[in-house]
């Protein structure tokens, strides 16, 4: 087990290097730069696109000491190595867009927020999605199944930012008990978490329904019924346990996606998470932040997958982590 984990960690590091290199090459080849964007649209009101002769001179001045680390004057390979060194030593320097904050400060501040929101959303989704899926499976082809399946389809198809508007109207206008915006109090978590949990509820309920139906058709379940087991004993004692295993595989990627894929919800409710920083970094060509966040996202995804595999091992003893069947 320990050797397997060490081997996987080695692969994670290798994959992260590949990921960071590809990201770096892509970023460096995307047209536009932070400086150009700042000159054109980074001003209050004076968004004149005509850069005058005198103003063009400013481009020289704009490249500050902070930016020289990433500037055009530094060879590409050196820029890449600087980034890797910064990543390893946790000294990634300041962001372009947030010049008085370092990358590690930004991540340290935003990651816990995004992580908490994602975990809460997935927890709610698990507590609502699993019973819904079970109900639909047990009442297969009944009106309950159809209703649950329809709901699952609807909540899965509607993006979380539309759900965000829906929950705002529901809990801030029709039943005006929650604020639409803000951070710092427990009540501020409710709407963003709710908005983000609808999609996962749909996925989990859908998976649960399919998985339980599959399990219920297995021979050992038939044997359990034949042995005179009660419905409670057969369903919850035998079928449920095995039906939950495939669900574990989707929870890892689900959490990682929720951590970084919540741009709209964050901006709508004022959640100081990673998503907004990520989209703003891309839009403003904030190279250091884009690079760091891509690597962090890759890291989260790979760690989640590793955790899922380890949990899988404990849930299903038939699975050998080496990949060989027992």
């Amino acid at each position, binding site marked *: 087990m320990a050797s397997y984990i060490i081997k996987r960690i080695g692969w994670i590091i290798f994959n992260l290097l590949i990921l960071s290199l590809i990201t770096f090459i892509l970023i460096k080849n995307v047209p536009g730069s932070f400086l150009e964007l700042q000159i054109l649209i980074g001003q209050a009101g004076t968004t004149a696109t005509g850069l005058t002769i005198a103003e063009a001179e400013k481009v020289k001045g704009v490249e500050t000491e902070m930016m020289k680390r990433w500037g055009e004057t530094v060879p590409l390979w050196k820029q890449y190595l600087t980034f890797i060194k910064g990543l390893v030593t946790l000294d990634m320097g300041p962001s372009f867009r947030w010049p008085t904050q370092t990358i590690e400060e930004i991540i340290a501040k935003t990651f816990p927020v995004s992580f908490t929101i994602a975990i809460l959303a997935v927890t709610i989704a698990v507590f609502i999605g699993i019973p819904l899926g079970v109900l639909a499976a047990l009442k297969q082809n009944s009106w309950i199944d159809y209703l649950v399946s329809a709901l699952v389809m609807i909540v899965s198809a509607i993006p979380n930012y539309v759900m965000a508007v829906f929950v705002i109207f529901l809990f801030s206008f029709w039943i005006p008990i929650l604020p639409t915006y*803000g951070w710092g109090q427990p009540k501020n978590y409710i709407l963003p978490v709710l908005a983000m949990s609808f999609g996962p509820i749909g996925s989990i309920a859908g998976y649960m329904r399919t998985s339980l139906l599959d399990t219920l058709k297995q021979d050992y379940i038939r044997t359990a019924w034949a042995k005179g087991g009660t419905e409670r004993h057969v369903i919850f004692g035998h079928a449920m346990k095995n039906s939950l295993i495939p669900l574990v595989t989707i929870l890892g990627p689900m959490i990682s996606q929720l951590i970084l894929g919540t741009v709209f919800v964050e901006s709508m409710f004022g959640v100081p998470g990673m998503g907004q920083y990520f989209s703003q970094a891309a839009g403003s060509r904030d190279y250091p932040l884009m690079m760091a966040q891509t690597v962090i996202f890759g890291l989260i995804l790979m760690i989640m997958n590793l955790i899922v595999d380890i949990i899988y091992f404990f849930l299903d003893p038939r699975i050998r982590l080496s990949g060989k069947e027992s």
Partner: protein
Amino acid sequence: MKTKRFLILILSLAILTGSFLGTAHAEKVFRWSGSWGNTWDLSFHQGFIWVHMMGLTEGLMKWDKDMNLVKGVADSYTISEDGTVYTFKIREDAKWSNGDKLTAHDFEYGIKYILDPKNGKGSFFGGAWYIKNAKDYANAVIPDPDQVGIKVLDEHTIQFTLDGPHPDFLTTCSLPTLYPMHKTSIEKLGNKAFDAGNLVTNGPYKLAAYTPNVEYVLEKNPYYYDADKVEIDKIVGKLGGDPFLMYKRNEVDLINVGAAQLPVIEKDPVLKKELITFPQSTVNVIYIHAFDHPAFDDIRVYTALQKAIDKEKICKFVYRGLAKPAYSWVTDLIPGSTANDPEVVEKFRFDPEAARELLAEAGYPGGEGFPTIHFLIHTGQASDPLILAVKSEWEKNLGIKVVIDNLEVGVWSVKIWQVHDEPTVSFSGASILYPDPAAPLTMNYVEGALAGSLKRKDVVEITKLGVQQTEALKAGDTKKATELAEKIKDITYAKASPEAKKMMNLVEQAQRTADPDERLELYRQANKIRDLNMYGYGSTRSFPLIQPMAARLVKSDFEVPFNQYLVGFPVNFAYIKTK
């Protein structure tokens, strides 16, 4: 017994809640939405920095609530006879938010900090560039900051020597580039000096809290010399969310609204009463980019393009009355403007018949043979109805073809500087930040207008040189960059049209003129030449479309004076009053 206990508990809770609510109510809080930005360091000039101007930091001069220029932390000032030396006495009771005394050294430090090429660089230098050698120091031509024309005469007296007479220097002393900065905290804490809790300010407010992308909180600065007159205890700036929903939920007291929200506001009697509209010194402009086509060497083509747009109709239907047609780059809020000059208005007012005639005279009857125009927009502009309206007007009234190229903003920011194969235009807003005739006619803008008067082949040539110059700058080859800049300048000055050169002479004359009426007239004449010839103030020709109005919803229990020049922000948080 149980019921009794329960009642006591409820009663205690009610009293406690009541007392808390009472405390909260006593504190006057003003919450607003519509600000943005990423740092509190003045040297990185971005939108957020204007919050300094509205309440955090105060310069030698400031605006009063009616937008008159008045003394800020300056106690008095003198101007030398030739208009090049300004000496300010600083108020002796002026203090920083940590209780330290505000001195002349803080101004010297702050201005040089912003100019220092090692620090962040924004894109606006305002009056700082009027100071002798300041521009050269900012561009690292002069390494020694002592050569910048700033001299501390004593603890409370500072003297500025300018590179020439600039009567609007006094006005620019109210802008952030000439603000003081707290040396001790910056030298001790570095970047951390700009964090909430560490940032030391000298204005009516101090920064109490800041959560990027969420909100900032300003609290009254007890050491501000005029603290007794500041009524609002706390300012909360919300940096996200849906402003209209937040306003309706009473989570904010001030928001910006657009034409799309007007129908809803009109139907709601409360919102209708709280709607405030006012003109602002912003003009939306069409820029003609670098490409070589003979049609665009003919002023009749530009005139036809402008006359073919029914600006009145666009203002009425697209903007629902929240805009008015613009015929000048400079709105009538700026002295010296020729926005209402009959000759200018008549030349460019909507007349589709005359527009078609002009196009025919230029050799394109009914738009036949006229090249396709590419309208370059970025994704942030895609929802702006003005773009589709202009396309439709040109196609309908001139019979020409217009294609909208919607690009990601970073790609757009590169494309607009390139030389294009086909006629290419773009769209943007531009504001004049203070009401002085010199503001829209600085030498930067005048040189831009000279470039705007060039023939297409010359525009293409200087654009190509400009791209090479930027590359040289990025590669650190300053020598080559300087040579290229000189070359661009030479071409521009040599090949500019006689009218553009006349405009430049008028501006140079105005800069040397002390008499205010004469100065104003010279600037007015220069504005008129620019407007009639559509030189714009960028490096390409351009023309104005509309002047959008500012529209705000303000809760009826507040009175907020607005700054028409600073894209409609409050003049200063210190002037907000409760009714």
